[in-house]
């Protein structure tokens, strides 16, 4: 109780301690490959998690995104991804284009922003946002991209030497009329793709791959989404090395409710003992 009363009068959020200092630097939106921003601002510390998963992440009970992916928990707050991936996550605006709607008073123009985020090591996300101002669209798209971060499975083309460098098998993704097919490539082949999906694949951390596309790839929005869909499917493909039976583990919620349930009983017992003594 003493520690509660000590510093809580003024800054409400600060009173609980900012122990989780592992935010690090974040990438920023804008031009170019990937930027690293410097310096935090106070507003960012004020993340008050809304979901239970957010609360667990803020407390530090969940240390990696993989725990979230393993149990297919929906990520509803982009700060979760920020906390877990931290400074490794870079983002880039792929395109800002005006979209128009015909109204009686003329045309209403809004801006649509396509942003891809990734850590070049197995996590990638794509965000699309429409807004009246460019800056709003970009910010919104970065948030949506972080909410959509997925794991990407990488494998080998031939000999299993070194780190995985290509897709584990041939996978295909579709969006609209565009289908994109990713084919494993030997080391050194590089990403053999058009400029736009190449960026997505680079952010995913795939080093070598052959691609083949079909459909109206002129609609680059669909092209990018088809590539992203393809990357999502890499972990959905059952290969022989996954034939071993899964050992199910407890979901983080279950694990931590049990953990939280135990100490209270222990402490109550201690209190009653001291009273009797």
């Amino acid at each position: 109780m003493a520690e509660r009363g000590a510093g809580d009068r003024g800054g409400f959020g600060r009173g609980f301690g900012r122990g989780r200092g592992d935010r690090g630097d974040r990438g920023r939106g804008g031009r170019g490959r990937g930027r690293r921003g410097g310096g935090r601002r106070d507003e960012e510390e004020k993340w008050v998690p809304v979901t239970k998963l957010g609360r667990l992440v803020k407390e530090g009970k969940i240390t990696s995104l993989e725990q979230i992916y393993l149990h297919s928990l929906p990520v509803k707050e982009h700060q979760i991804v920020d906390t877990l991936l931290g400074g490794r996550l870079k983002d880039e605006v792929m395109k800002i284009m005006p979209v128009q709607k015909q109204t009686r008073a003329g045309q209403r123009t809004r801006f649509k922003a396509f942003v891809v985020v990734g850590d070049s090591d197995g996590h990638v996300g794509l965000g699309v946002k429409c807004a009246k101002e460019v800056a709003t669209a970009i910010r919104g798209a970065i948030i949506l991209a972080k909410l959509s971060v997925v794991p990407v499975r990488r494998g080998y083309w031939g000999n299993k030497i070194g780190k995985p460098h290509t897709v584990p098998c041939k996978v295909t993704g579709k969006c609209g009329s565009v289908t994109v097919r990713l084919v494993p490539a030997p080391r050194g082949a590089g990403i053999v793709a058009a400029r736009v999906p190449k960026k997505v694949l680079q952010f995913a951390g795939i080093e070598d791959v052959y691609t083949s596309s079909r459909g109206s790839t002129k609609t680059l929005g669909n092209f990018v989404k088809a590539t992203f869909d393809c990357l999502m499917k890499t972990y959905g493909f059952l290969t022989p090395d996954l034939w071993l039976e899964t050992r199910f583990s407890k979901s983080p919620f279950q694990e931590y409710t049990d953990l939280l349930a135990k100490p209270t009983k222990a402490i109550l017992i201690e209190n009653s003992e001291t009273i009797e003594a």
Partner: protein
Amino acid sequence: MGEVHIGLPGPWAENCREKADHYTTKIGGLPDWPIPEPNIKRELLYCRVCDGRLCLVAQVYAPILSTKLNIEERAIYIFGCPNQDCGKNPDSWRAIRLQKGDQDSEPNLALSNTLPSEKESFPMDGASNWLKDTLLMNDSGKLNDGSVGDKKLDDLARAFSEASALSSCSKKQNRKKRNNSSTRARVGRTTAEETPVPVLPCFYIYFQTNQAHGSIDAVSSFYSSLTLKEDVYPATDTDEEEKWVGETYEYDKALGADTTYLKFKKQMDTYPEQCLRYSYGGIPLLATSNSIEPDKCIHCGSPLVYELQLFSPILYFLQQAANASVACSADGWSWITLIVYTCSRVCTSYLNS
């Protein structure tokens, strides 16, 4: 009617069992009843599922000050069960509305001499003009936190209100009642000391009126990770084949979150710490699109109107401050929002003597 009041967290209470008055709006702590506690029916304060004592989650001073209806003495108390298993069960939640009856409008009290002082002064010792309505909240679609096998986080807790009938007595009975209530109060106090009431960590709420919607877009500029220092536009495409064509407006969508939730989150981000949202007769802020319409008031049958809703930052703050030896904890709960509807006719019922 249309104005929305946002309840933001204020200072912590020095002692979570400290007394305030029924005009305070607070989270946690002990409820400040304007009438002595034994006057309240026992079953209202106990969980319907496990029969354990309920703890106060929120106490909101909610007067109605419109031209048609003027009830200054009105408060809403929201209770929840601290038991780990009950938190998921909608039946364990309860909301009680207490208000001071308008004596001119009550046919029963027309027989008694109405003292104007009774309206102005607010005696804490069993003024039986207090009419109490209990709102029983049924939460449907509560948050499943994975333990039952449902791994979805996306849930909404709704509260439905019902008023239960308790009749108030005439002045003569008032006197008798006062005597009775005082003796009962003494007895009540001793029993209360023996079985400690579970209490959540307590903090107070201050209200702010929601500012114009135009500022919502400005909020996302708080995130420095999203601000742009360089030129906003990406490099112009030099290749002729890469004209992006055929794009139209697209609604926001992410893997784990749909449009409704994203709009909800946008509103939450205007005040990230908001715990309470009060808007009598307004529109609730929903987090999922599968909303359930509330039933009618069980006593007068009139439709229910939205009054206030609680948000999950409350759970965050309570869990941060949880000190297991003193208070019970909010760990078993995992809702995103809790909505309270009240009777639109503000019907009242009388205390049974």
